[in-house]
């Protein structure tokens, strides 16, 4: 076992281009023993390392065919290079870190998923898990907002989800003159008013840009949803993921060790303040 700071060697097994700046990488540890001992829960994240460049936190999307899957958007120094990796490329990986979505506790309830932008990765993982155990939950509501309808990742996947029994898929585009069939015009918050779910017996899971989540919190409250039943995944700069470097503090919570998933009511004050 390495000390907590030191990554393990891993390899890119597969690369799927999702959009021009988003790819999904399938990764496997070089050491089979490390691979075998690796366990994670839905909502956790890894630190991915590129030689000579550094580490970035990335959510775990899925685990398939013995590979960890990460969906990454090229936004900066490290992520651009990650997105450009070809199968066979070597990287460093350590994790998993953080807590997970309350999928167990939400059994028997309506599940409401709200995402926007590319903030969808952690929530998509939860949606897939919920659909895999469809019978455990009541209604499923999936709401996604994007700027332009063609920004939507995994269009086909959303189409498939529409076929799942008692699963409502709502999509919104905010910066489009004319939206396609079955889409709404506006922010994701406009969908919250449209969706049919039981506000008293639902668990909400959110992820996305902070202004969108602030607006969603207001819309949910207006619809009578208690913040005790709402969860979101948060981001702050992360240098360690170990609870040591102090960068991920958002007021009192450390995002890496107390999150990244929080019950909204637990951190509401910090989250609503600018500049923490």
């Amino acid at each position, binding site marked *: 076992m390495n000390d907590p700071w030191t990554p393990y060697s891993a390899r890119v097994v597969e690369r799927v281009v999702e959009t021009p700046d988003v790819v999904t990488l399938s990764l496997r540890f070089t050491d089979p023993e490390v691979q075998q001992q690796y366990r994670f829960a839905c909502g956790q994240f890894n630190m991915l390392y590129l030689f*000579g*460049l550094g580490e970035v936190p990335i959510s775990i999307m899925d685990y398939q065919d013995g590979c960890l899957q990460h969906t990454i958007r090229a936004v900066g*120094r490290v992520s*651009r*290079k990650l997105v450009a990796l070809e199968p066979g490329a070597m990287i460093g990986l350590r994790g998993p870190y953080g807590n997970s979505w309350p999928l167990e506790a939400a059994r028997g309830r309506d599940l409401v998923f709200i995402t926007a932008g590319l903030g969808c990765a952690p929530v998509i993982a939860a949606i897939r898990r919920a659909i895999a155990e469809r019978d455990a939950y009541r209604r499923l509501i999936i709401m996604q907002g994007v700027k332009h309808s063609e920004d939507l990742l995994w269009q086909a996947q959303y189409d498939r989800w529409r076929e799942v029994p008692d699963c409502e898929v709502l999509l919104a585009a905010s910066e489009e003159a004319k939206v396609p069939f079955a889409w709404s015009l506006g922010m994701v918050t406009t969908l919250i008013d449209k969706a049919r779910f039981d506000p008293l017996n639902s668990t909400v899971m959110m992820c996305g840009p902070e202004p969108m989540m602030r607006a969603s919190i207001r819309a949910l409250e207006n619809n009578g949803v208690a913040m005790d039943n709402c969860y979101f995944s948060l981001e702050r700069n992360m240098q360690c993921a170990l609870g040591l470097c102090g960068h991920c503090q958002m007021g009192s919570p450390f995002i890496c060790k107390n999150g990244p998933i929080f019950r909204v009511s637990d951190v509401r004050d910090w989250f609503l303040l600018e500049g923490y």
Partner: protein
Amino acid sequence: MAQASIAVHKLTSCSGCQSVFLNLGDDLLVLNELVEISHFIEAGLNNFDAEVDIAFVEGSITTPDDEARILKVRERSRFVVAIGACACSGGVQALRNVKDSVGWAGAVYADTEYLDSLAESRPVAQLVKVDLELWGCPISGRQLIATVRALLQGVPPVLPTEKVCQECKRAGNVCVLVTKAAPCLGPVTRAGCGALCPSFGAPCYTCFGASEQPNCDSLGERLVGLGIPQRQVAERFVSISSGLEPYQKAWARWRIPAKQLDS
């Protein structure tokens, strides 16, 4: 196999930044293997017209010749890196922007007939697009190595914008402003030198230019409050990187009006 070609150019400057290349020691040999050095007069390579991947440009633009040359350099280089206080901010010679340079020239030279200089000393970025700025007077060898390394990997280097104070504290120094009332400008100066002057007990001179969020008003007030004459405080801000706006503002605020100075 060389992974890229580079050129090292000089405009109006003291050659101190170029010397940082020459003083890299063993790393100079490594550099020579990693890249093809096409033009570097100080190292005996004269091929000004070569097209290169990365051009390092030292010096500020103070003559018509500098102007003509920087335009050519830009045309022939994929990536232009301005190196040093002169190239990034106009350098010490930008002092003439705030003073009457003709008068100075007359005071220094017996005959000014052969001087052919522009009214102002300007940073490279005022004439052409600069892709990266490496600050310092001179630049730091460590940052130079990190920059070459990063560019070869196809990413921008990570260069700090934090204050010299951060490096000073990491180096285990004692603050000379606090123990000796020294007029240290570390709190408004970009890190990069490793807090060189304070490590020898001397106050910081702004070699690496303005840091992020430089609060020159508050620092200047403090220095004046410590009993340092206003005029000294003003001049302190416009020494090496006088071309920078926050420093010029500080100078304007504390300089004693010209009238009073003349009398």
